[in-house]
């Protein structure tokens, strides 16, 4: 197991957002976390990525306890994430955004007088990821001028530029058109193979995307794991259909 969570509980005051969630992710897996609003998906991903400290339970990544250690240290350990709401650096160009990720990965951020333009490893690393995500033609465009779909792609691309071992994607296709969703997912899967990503965890509402790409699906409901199984098994689980997927979605 690359990532293992055991007995995660999270309280906000008296409200229990997560109630004894356990899960594991193996190398080579694409795992989707699904659940209705308020199921605890965002809390879970925030705990897995070190932003939120669990009230109880443990998160182990590469045999190290990482609960609440913060995103900076987790990124250095090889875990990256993207956000549900697009997170970009508005005034930086596409290339600068990716350069920042490469600089952080190479641990060169404290080089005060080094020339960024003269650092070929950073330049080439950023350009490689830009091309991989089809952003090469827009590399000099400020991120704020990108179309919404490309902003989403840049957000994900910057996480990939860290060359992580595992990536957590919080609704990677939210806010983009239906036509762009498949394109984004195809790009993402191709890029993950290219950089040698060991595992992907995504939170996703679009069941077409979930069932098309997942090796395993974890269904959350009211802060608990309702089911943790392969897509075919999930589709035949009446509790998941009633609480999470819905009959109409299943029929489609």
């Amino acid at each position, binding site marked *: 197991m690359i990532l293992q969570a055991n007995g995660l509980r999270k309280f906000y005051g008296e409200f229990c957002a997560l109630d004894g969630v356990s899960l594991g992710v193996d190398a080579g897996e694409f795992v989707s976390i699904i659940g209705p609003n308020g199921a605890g998906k965002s809390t879970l991903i925030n705990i897995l*990525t070190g932003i939120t400290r669990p009230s109880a339970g443990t998160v182990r990544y590469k045999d190290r306890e990482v609960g609440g250690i*913060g*995103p*900076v240290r987790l*990124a*250095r350990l090889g875990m*990256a*994430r993207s*956000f549900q709401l697009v*997170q*970009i*650096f*508005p*005034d*930086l160009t596409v290339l*600068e*955004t990716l*350069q*920042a*990720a490469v*600089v*952080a*990965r190479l641990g*060169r*951020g*404290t*080089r*005060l*007088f*080094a*020339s*960024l*333009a003269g*650092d070929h490893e*950073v330049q080439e690393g950023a350009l490689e990821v830009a091309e991989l995500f089809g952003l090469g033609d*827009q*590399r*000099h*465009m400020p991120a704020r001028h990108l179309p919404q779909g490309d902003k989403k792609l840049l*957000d994900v691309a*910057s*996480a990939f530029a*860290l060359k992580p071992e595992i990536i957590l994607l919080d609704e990677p296709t939210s806010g983009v058109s239906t036509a762009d969703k498949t394109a984004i997912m195809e790009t993402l899967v191709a890029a993950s193979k290219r950089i040698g990503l060991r595992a992907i965890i995504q939170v996703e509402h679009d069941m077409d995307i979930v069932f098309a790409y997942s090796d395993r699906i974890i269904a959350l409901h009211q802060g608990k794991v309702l089911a943790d199984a392969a897509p075919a098994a999930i589709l035949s689980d009446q509790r998941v259909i009633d609480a999470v997927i819905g009959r109409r979605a299943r029929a489609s």
Partner: protein
Amino acid sequence: MKRGLVVTVATAAVAAAPFVASTYHVLLMLPFMAYGVILLGLNLLFGYTGLVSFGHALFVAIGAYTGAFLTTHGKVRSLEVILVAAASFGTLVAVPVAALCVRYVKIYFGMLTLAFGMVFYTFVLKFYRLTGGDEGTPFLRPSLLGQSLDAMPKVDYLAGPYYYYSLAVLGLAALCMWRIVHSPFGLCLKTIRDNPAKAETLGIGVTRYRFYAFVISAIYAAVGGALLGPPTGNVDPTLAYWTHSGNLVFMTLLGGFASFFGPVVGAFVFIYLQNWVMSIVPYWRLIFGAMLAVIVIFAPEGLMGLVTRRRPAPTSWP
């Protein structure tokens, strides 16, 4: 290329000023060059990191008082030693102040820096025996590059050797800052300015980088502060007062914090404008207050923003 040409022409014009301009205007250039150094540093924090300090006069005063103490009580007259001492003492004070302040952002950061500035102001004002209180401390004429120039008339000294020394310090400070903002470190600061939460997910330690930016900007402020002393020959507590910090922010806004040279342009325009307005009306602060309001409303990117806005927008990116 075009920017390089403009900088070369501007530098040549400043270098030629003692030969073509009146002594009065040449002497006005001295605070401009000192403030140029200070604002290059302040803008690393403001324009590149997104933190607005309302207490940076603290470090300007530390630099100025370091020079005054060394020349008056320490018998040290070498300006090179004074600048190094100012930078060192500025660092010493900046480290604990930065460690506390950079944990906060926006108005909380601004208020905390203001508070530290006022603490130091009160210290230099009240510890009369040590600082001379409101009368200040003399800043004796420093030697330049090992040359004692005491025999030279003061105006000749300031408009000659000291002028070019200040210009060289400003040039060196600009060169170093140019390297810093175009380095991997500078890029990391820009990510923090734009989106600190996203920067953290890339593994960029936001607090740590803010701390470094704060300390570097304090060093620049202290060095610039030390350069402010010799022209007046005296340093007093107003250097540390909060209105002085406000002036630094005003100069940066006036020139444009989004541009590398914006704050330097802001310092130049502020000093000449202040001098001109003060010569014609006694209530210059009223005029400057109105100007600040106009800039914030109509030209939020300052004078440099007005210049760059005139350029035709690119239709496509290469």
